[in-house]
């Protein structure tokens, strides 16, 4: 009962981490083969398709790109995707597969939604079932769920090639990476998960919404749709944009405890696996393990704390005589105890809290409980996980490349302390890398703080805030934290579907994605051009527990120091007021 967590709670956390690690290690090895262009067990199936795609797209797979070409291709592709999706959402009324005859989106909502899915954020200012046609969901959003995730992995691949390259300016071919990642990694995994979820009752239909008649004689519209196909990639690609407004709390998206487990594992699966991919590709598995360890050592304590805080519940209810103790005695008296507000009884406290931390540690953003209803400190944990810069596992690809930016900063400070100019994996870290790394860390922080300030200061921003005081502040802070770090989860409680929030959050997502991604590619280019210095006893080892601790220290310190004043004015003061009574 340590931390007030039930033994069942501990068991679920431990099993979750064990299952995650067990799946991530082999997947990581497989992804490394795919990214290195090696043959793998899916090659017999896809090699011809792959060749066909290159032929159609006039891609010469052996033509490697410089970092600038690579970046240009990423921008071109993302911008094209944005225009396509933006246009589609503006015109969905006349497009097919719209049995509910849902109208076109307003321009600000279309902008926000298009940016959101292209940047792998999946912030949703809308309610899916009352806003988007099946066509928009499938052809628009699901396509971006795949390709925006692939872009993240591709940029990571380019960075790894930069780290391993020897005095070269070549980082691989973006189009090849894009095709291979989709074909060999995302599609097969999504297929497996979609089938597994269907078996649990996640629906998949093109039929129009069902009208049910209740016992009272009232009629009720039940939204349905092609959910399973979107659900799988939504979880796997750290997208998080739900088919329904209530996301994975909806029984058609997430019907059973087993579907819940599959979805939770899918959230962190690829980001965790990429650590091992990294280790394999740079030829030193220990480096990958060290990064995985750093992520896990931040994730597990925070998750345990979140479970504990939710299990502890609200002191006022206890004082009022409510029984908030967990009880597993029998069906009649069984209850989860703690703070169950906004949580589904199918999942209980542990699975809601693990989901909340996993979805914010990774930049997934899907929810199976309402974060707004968490206790103040319980809600602070998902927020701080995003504020760490989405590097605790993080988004697919983007999490690890963001983490490597922090590694570069850590190596810089720690490296100096051992009396050498800093280096990582034998590559010297100079002024250019530090400039780019600083930009990548600085920009999301700036976006969150400045936009939150604008929102709480202007009438348009204040108009969306429903809750009073510190809680209202937390909601705004959470929204911009989520957008600028490309998470996409919402605290809820904020009315964000207004031109003001749609535009500002849209810009946050856009800048938060590309002004991290571009510096990372620039770093990759600069590192590739350098020679690798062989390791010696004088080299700072970056796989040791000490380095892992140092790395965690830097991430936590940067996150906490940047956001401490804001957090104090939000969740912390709310918590203090709560316990004070």
């Amino acid at each position: 009962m340590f931390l007030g967590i039930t033994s069942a709670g501990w068991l679920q956390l431990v099993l979750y981490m064990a299952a995650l690690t067990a799946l991530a290690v082999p997947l990581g090895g497989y992804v490394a083969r795919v990214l290195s262009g090696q043959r793998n067990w899916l090659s017999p199936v896809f090699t011809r398709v792959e060749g066909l795609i290159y032929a159609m797209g006039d891609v010469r797979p052996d033509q490697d790109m410089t970092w600038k070409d690579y970046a240009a291709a990423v921008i071109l592709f993302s911008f094209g995707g944005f225009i396509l999706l933006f246009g589609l959402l503006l015109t969905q009324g006349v497009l097919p597969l719209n049995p509910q005859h849902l109208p076109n989106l307003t321009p600000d909502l279309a902008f926000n939604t298009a940016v959101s899915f292209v940047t792998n954020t999946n912030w949703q200012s809308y309610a899916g079932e009352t806003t988007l046609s099946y066509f928009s969901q499938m052809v628009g959003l699901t396509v971006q769920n795949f390709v925006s995730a692939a872009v993240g992995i591709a940029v990571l691949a380019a960075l790894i090639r930069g780290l391993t390259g020897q005095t070269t300016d070549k980082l691989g071919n973006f189009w090849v990476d894009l095709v291979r990642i989709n074909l060999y990694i995302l599609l097969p995994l999504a297929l497996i998960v979609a089938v597994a979820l269907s078996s649990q009752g996640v629906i998949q239909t093109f039929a129009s919404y069902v009208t049910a008649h209740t016992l009272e004689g009232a009629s009720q519209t039940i939204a349905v749709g092609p959910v399973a196909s979107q659900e799988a990639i939504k979880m796997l690609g750290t997208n998080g944009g739900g088919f329904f407004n209530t996301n994975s709390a909806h029984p058609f998206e997430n019907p059973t405890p087993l579907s819940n487990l599959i979805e939770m594992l899918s959230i962190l699966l690829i980001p965790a696996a990429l650590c091992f991919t990294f280790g394999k590709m740079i030829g030193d598995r220990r480096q990958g393990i060290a990064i995985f360890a750093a992520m896990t050592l931040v994730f597990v304590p925070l998750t345990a704390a979140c479970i504990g805080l939710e299990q502890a519940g609200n002191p006022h209810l206890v004082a009022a005589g409510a029984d908030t103790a967990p009880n597993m005695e029998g069906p009649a008296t069984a209850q989860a105890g703690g703070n169950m507000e906004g949580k589904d009884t199918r999942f209980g406290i542990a699975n809601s809290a693990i989901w909340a931390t996993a979805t914010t540690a990774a930049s997934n953003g899907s929810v199976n409980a309402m974060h707004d209803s968490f206790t103040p400190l319980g809600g602070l944990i998902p927020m701080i996980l995003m504020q760490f810069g989405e590097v605790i596992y993080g988004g697919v690809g983007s999490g690890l490349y963001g983490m490597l930016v922090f590694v570069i900063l850590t190596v810089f400070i720690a490296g100096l302390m051992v009396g050498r100019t800093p280096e990582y994996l034998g590559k010297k870290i100079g002024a250019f890398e530090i400039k780019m790394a600083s930009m990548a860390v600085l920009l999301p922080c700036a976006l969150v703080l400045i936009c939150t300030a604008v929102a709480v200061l202007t009438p348009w921003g204040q108009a969306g805030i429903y809750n009073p005081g510190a809680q209202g502040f937390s909601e705004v802070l959470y929204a911009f934290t989520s957008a600028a770090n490309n998470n996409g989860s919402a605290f809820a409680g904020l009315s964000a579907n207004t031109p003001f929030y749609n535009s500002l959050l849209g810009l946050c997502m856009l800048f938060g994605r590309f002004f991290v991604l571009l510096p990372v590619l620039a770093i990759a280019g600069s590192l590739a051009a350098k020679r690798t210095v062989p390791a010696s006893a004088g080299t700072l080892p970056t796989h040791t527990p000490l380095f892992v601790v140092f790395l965690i220290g830097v991430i936590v310190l940067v996150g906490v120091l940047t956001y401490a004043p804001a957090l104090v004015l939000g969740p912390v003061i709310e918590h203090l007021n709560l316990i004070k009574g």
Partner: protein
Amino acid sequence: MSAPSQTHKTDFRLAVLQAIQRLDPRYQARNPVMFLVWVGSIITTLILAIMLAVPGTVIGGGQPVWFVGLIAFWLWFTVLFANFAESLAEGRGKAQADSLKMARRDVEARKLDKSGKLTTVAASTLRKGDTVRVEAGDIVPADGQVIEGIASVDESAITGESAPVIRESGGDRDAVTGGTRVLSDWVIVRVTADPGESFLDKMIGLVESAKRQKTPNEIALSILLAALTLVFLMACATLLPFSLFSVAKAGSGTVISITVLIALLVCLIPTTIGGLLSAIGISGMQRLIKANVIATSGRAVEAAGDVNVLLLDKTGTITFGNRQAVEFFPAPNVSLQQLAEAAELSSLADETPEGRSIVALARGQYGLPERSAADLKAEFIPFSAEQRVSGIVINERHILKGAGDAIAGLINLKGGLVPAEVTTVVEDIAKKGGTPLMVAEGPKVLGVIYLKDIVKPDIKVRLAELRKMGIKSVMITGDNPLTAAAIASEAGVDDFVAEATPETKLRYIRKMQEGGEMVAMVGDGTNDAPALAQSDVAVAMNSGTQAAKEAGNMVDLDSDPTKLIEIVEIGKQLLMTRGALTTFSISNDLAKYFAIIPAAFATTYPALGVLNVMGLSSPQSAILSAVIFNALIIIALIPLALKGVKYRAESASHMLTRHALIYGLGGIVAPFIGIKLIDMGLTVVGLV
């Protein structure tokens, strides 16, 4: 060359004066971190002025006048302390710069034109390629190469070494430096540096550090610090709207005042490292100068920290420059006593270190009496390059010693033979890395003297230390591979290059660099220049040629090849100090948050009082204590910045552990204690 101690006080006063002069915004703008503090000082001072003029003004944010005044006061001191650190660091090199400047004074030069006519011109009009004649008593007007003549030169103005040195044309000692004085004879010098670019100018520039350019790593660190500063600037600036919103929603309390925001900002931005960064760089350079090494670029000093291959000359670095006799091996039918006596006699007049060591060994180990060459009325045969033997003729005895083949040739002429046993001994000694000298009397071989290269007693330990730090040592020698291998294993070097020529050295360096290694080497001759130019850290001996000095990026005024190890240590120390103070500076912020945040929002959210873990007596005292701590820590760390973090030879992981504990963990804990103590002090004084 260190400054006399009585100048210490003037240094200090000068530094204080300069600290105040440097409040000039144009100067401050060079350092973004301290510039922000400077701006903060201006703003708080303005607020104070307005508060004094208009009591109860809204700009004061409800803070008492004395509080704003004290904050402004301490912010100014934060800037001053940082200026002071820099000035103090510079001041230490000032005495040296002054004496160097004396040497630079404009002198007259006798310029030689093409027809051979001498005209007197000012030294400052000399250009590269001109030739001048310098005679006894003259000051050398410019850097140059001796093309004719030989002279003894007093170089003490630059090296601090008062013994004169010989400079002559056509050898490895042809470089003369402007500002040195010719003591005897004359030389004709071809000028190799335009005015303003001479060695002396470079030295003065380095020592004065006014022209100091930021080194690559320093630039990178400055960028990181600027980025951190920006983050904190945003965190603090946005706190005003957040506070406005919170007050409006909470319906109680007052909005955070500008003064407190600035105080928080100054405490959070990395002022400790920002204020000391240039002092660290300057004093690193000065440690080098103190070791009598002049680096022509700061980049080279940083590179010295990165070096992982050291090319060391065998002679003078690994071994003493000369070989010593360690054992006698008599030929068959010759007694040891006989051989020892003959060896001693043959070497009596031999004033070389080898000769003296033979005499010493004979007397020490075989009890021969003291006698001098003069007493013996003997005739000496001096060493000649042709015969390659030396010896003595005494009472009709012809005793000779020399290399095996030379002696063998001579006794063959006299009808003698070298016994097979002696030949074996000669080969054995050569195999062990020693030098065998054969001794013969008339046609008879008496035996062999074993001359050994004596490895310096402390070198093995130092090389082992280098290895611990991951630095590979490579011995460069002209010896044959057999001899080289023997000495290499005795000294414990990791690798050696035998029969080294300028080409093999260059090839070796290139090969290492292709593998990503950073190579350091020492050289003095013109033929070393290509290898020096190729090396990452290239130390030229001051006694060496102009070509070598130009190819290198450092000059060792002591001409001591062992200095390379010291240079590496200084480079490492410089980087370590930067890293340590950066870590310390950032770690400090945690405690400052705990001090300031509860204080800043005390009126809006009194519940935040639980975060006041230090139990600071009042909001004003808390903020003031943090600001004072932040300023004083700069002063407290000046000695560390100037002296550098203590250097120990150990592996990187050990070093990281130790430094992470001291400067990371220590950096987190120290301000909690410091701020609390200052708060207690303020309370006792009754200020708050």
